[in-house]
């Protein structure tokens, strides 16, 4: 028989520690996903007391058999990011169990999707933190936005209902599941199609810049203005030869690698200072720094045809290439 009172007492004692574990796991994941330039949202919490007790009663599980006392969910913007996210989790944690919900469905079945991994902290991550974390499980779920939406709704519709649903209602719900799968597939397909189009260079350049920007910047992902990004990139790409545009990814990789320390310092010192530095919160700031280094005069000339030089000036100063006033000529 499940001793619910004992479970309650034990979890009351340990819940704050599971909260801390979630915070720590989220921090590790945030650093790693930024480092790899994967755009995603990371959320998590310790399981609520009521939910834990109900799971113990409903599934007749002992306290130790409940594996998701600490739960973290990573919601990827793009379906293609899921393999990278799984790789990140496998590299940074000891994976005790992995379940890809999609693999459990046959071709003619629809259902809950996502990848669930039960993990423990690696030895190298245990120094400087509570010894209590050693051996403790955390469940990490990997979802796309579509899968995340379905996961939230299905929980309410299918698993929390007091009575079983009639067939036609269940059918409607599974149509929603099909729609979610279709949504993710179509987003992935549309993205691949668009990126392959000849005129889509700006979007490709943005994607290459984002990879470095998210690693260097401490800005939240939703602070980027994409219309401004495309407008700036369209302006700045004139500053590159056709050959440089074709090898833009390598060019930026080399630039960032050669200037990693100074870029980190700039983002650390100025990113929080909103007064004149709004360009620092856009990935194109890396392109601007690169052009300041290699073609400052050309950049100033092209820039001033569309934007005031006063917008460029703070970045020029940060890079150590101040813009001369006309009054100084």
């Amino acid at each position, binding site marked *: 028989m499940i001793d619910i009172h004992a479970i309650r007492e034990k979890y009351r004692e340990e819940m704050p520690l599971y909260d801390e574990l979630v915070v720590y796991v989220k921090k590790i994941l945030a650093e790693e996903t930024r480092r790899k330039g994967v755009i995603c949202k990371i959320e998590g919490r310790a399981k609520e007391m009521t939910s834990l007790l109900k799971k113990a009663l409903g599934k007749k599980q002992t306290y130790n058999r409940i594996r998701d006392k600490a739960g973290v969910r990573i919601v990827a913007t793009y379906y293609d990011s899921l393999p990278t996210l799984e790789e990140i989790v496998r590299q940074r944690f000891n994976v005790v169990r992995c379940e890809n919900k999609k693999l459990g469905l046959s071709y003619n079945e629809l259902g809950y999707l996502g990848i669930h991994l039960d993990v423990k902290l690696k030895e190298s991550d245990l120094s400087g933190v509570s010894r209590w974390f050693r051996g403790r499980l955390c469940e990490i779920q990997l979802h796309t936005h579509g899968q995340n939406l379905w996961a939230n709704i299905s929980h309410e519709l299918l698993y929390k209902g007091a009575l079983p649903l009639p067939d036609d209602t269940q059918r409607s719900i599974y149509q929603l599941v099909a729609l979610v799968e279709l949504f993710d597939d179509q987003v992935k397909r549309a993205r691949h199609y668009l990126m392959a189009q000849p005129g889509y260079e700006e979007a490709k350049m943005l994607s290459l810049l984002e990879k470095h920007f998210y690693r260097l910047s401490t800005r939240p992902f939703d602070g980027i203005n994409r219309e401004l990004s495309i407008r700036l990139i369209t302006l700045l790409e004139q500053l590159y030869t056709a050959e440089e545009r074709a090898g833009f990814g390598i060019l930026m990789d080399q630039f960032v690698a050669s200037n990693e320390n100074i870029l980190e*310092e700039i983002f650390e*010192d100025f990113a929080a*200072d909103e007064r004149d530095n709004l360009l620092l919160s856009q990935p194109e700031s890396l392109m601007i720094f690169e052009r300041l280094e290699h073609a400052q005069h*050309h950049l100033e000339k092209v820039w001033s045809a569309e934007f005031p030089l006063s917008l460029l000036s703070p970045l020029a*100063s940060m890079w*150590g290439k101040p813009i*001369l006033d006309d009054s*100084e*000529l």
Partner: protein
Amino acid sequence: MEPQRLRIDRLIVHDIPKKDSGEQPRLSESARPVDPSLLNTFKLKISDSLKLAANDVAFIPNCESCVPKLVLDQLGESPSDFVEVSQAIAKRLFECQTSRNTAGFLTVVHGNVESKPALVILKLEKEKGVRIEPQIVEGKLTYDFEEISMTLGTNTKVFKIGFFVQTGTTLDSIVGSASDTQRSTQSIARVAGFFLRSFLGCDYREAPAVTTMRFYQASERYINEEVTDPLKRKRYEFALQATLDSQRSVFSPKEFAEEHLDGDDIDYYLRFLEDANVPLQQIPKNISLIEKHLRKMQFNFERGTILIASKEEVNENIEFTSLDGNSMRVSFQDRLDKVKGKI
């Protein structure tokens, strides 16, 4: 050392009056914490000023000024009290100023550049200005005038600044750059080097005559090796000579490029100079080593013809016409003075 990488940890300001005002310096007694965004403003001002106008300097051995020893102390592992040292530096500035020097704020900034300890000493000059604000008085638009005092406005340039980074443990291992110029670059005479020499105890690491010569030589090499259009070559050479022959006491390669070179050539020219280790910021001009090269221009043609003429003649009386294949026609009218054999 790149000044834009300066990270400031403390800063103090002392009020230095004019020498003949009868007042004494008002010295701060503590270094108050400064808002991080204000520190960023200072950092960019310092960096911009150094990048535009400073040159490499070294401390003069056994000089009269106490500043080198104080800088060495502050960049050491066990520095003396920052406030007391900055006060001593402020007193030294007041001592060596003359009645020609304006009042200002002596600012001492301590920080680091790539983890190496750094000290910046700058004099911020007080400026009087007028604030003009629109107002409605008795239903009519008018403007209100208010006299204000300003020290570090958006467009203020810091012209007296010393930036020192310790790369070792001795006075010689301190890498410095400093600027000591008038506000106006049109001035014939530079401000007497009181700030650089009497106060900071420094001198330029490379004599201005040598730097000027290196700029001239690198620029001529660029013109002759990288510019193919003959008319453009003539134009650039003329501008180079005119710039160096002008009355201005300072010049800036970057300004020269922006004023005289075609847009497409500027970035490459500046990289060419950088590769030749020619500084791009403002340089005190001294043409003593190249003076005779500036008197005339010489054009050497492929088949052996040499034309030597003054700049005035080149500009006013000799016509150059560009032809196909990078060749040119040169024509001028003059009375023949002498003809003779030449080896």
